[in-house]
């Protein structure tokens, strides 16, 4: 029987892929910066779910896991805010206007929403998992 792929690692690869892509995006494409940040967080959530053998296919299913699963207690508000910001930003003609006004740059969004998600979820996935701070182009 063929060896099953390590789903946790597959999601971690996607997390890193999106994270690396986010760094390269020109600030003129703020919608894509925010979208890449959101999908970076999403793949980390998926990695945690995969660790518990939970399979989700849609945002609504994933969001329900984040809302009601205790493993996401600390990060749920951050993740759901990121999901809602991204839901509008990627379809909004003026994405800059939708960034919360207390964020001076998009890196404040990264520091306030993505970084705490990563810091909280890394140990839940692997004790050795770490990442340098994500800095987007401004």
């Amino acid at each position, binding site marked *: 029987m063929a060896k099953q792929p390590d789903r946790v690692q597959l999601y971690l690869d996607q997390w890193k892929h999106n994270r690396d892509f986010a760094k390269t995006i020109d600030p003129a494409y703020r919608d894509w910066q925010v979208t890449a940040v959101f999908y970076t967080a999403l793949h980390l959530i998926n990695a945690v779910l995969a660790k518990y053998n939970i399979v989700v296919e849609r945002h609504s299913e994933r969001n329900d896991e984040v809302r*009601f699963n205790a493993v996401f207690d600390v990060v749920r508000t951050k993740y759901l805010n990121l999901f809602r910001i991204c839901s509008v930003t990627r379809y909004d003609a003026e994405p800059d206007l939708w*960034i919360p006004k207390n964020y001076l740059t998009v890196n404040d969004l990264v520091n306030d929403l993505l970084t705490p998600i990563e810091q909280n979820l890394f140990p839940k996935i692997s004790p050795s998992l770490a990442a340098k701070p994500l800095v987007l182009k401004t």
Partner: protein
Amino acid sequence: MAEEKTKLPSVPAQTKGITEIHAHETHRRYKLVDLNNREIEQTAGEIVEASKLLSNRKLWIDNFKAVVTRVRAWCEQYKDHVRMALVDIRSDKVVFYLVPQSESYDLTLGDAMTALEIEIGGGSGIGCVESLQVPLRSIERFVGEKSLQVWPTVAMGE
């Protein structure tokens, strides 16, 4: 011990004058006549399933109204942050759209929305409930034509 065979009644059973329709009586057909004298023929099993669907629908509507009442109260509580609330009933979920007072995403409101989703989402009896913030300037992009405004208006259709 020999298993006792279920005995099917040969005619519709009655309890205190009410005719009983048993779902297991797949062979038995009933003729129903609607208000326009249109005849509908269904098996006992189909009638029982249709009745259950009708009961579930009524329960869903009652639960939905209770959720809307809660969301209206919540909007009152956060009226400094909320300009308008609408609801969209989709095939797989119910989405509440919150239009913030601000032009940008309101983080305080977002935190409160998460708490509201957790409060009503688990035991609402209407399936998945989500809330999204949408800007007034581009509300048409996100809110469908069939969406209902639940706040600040007070009237809600039956």
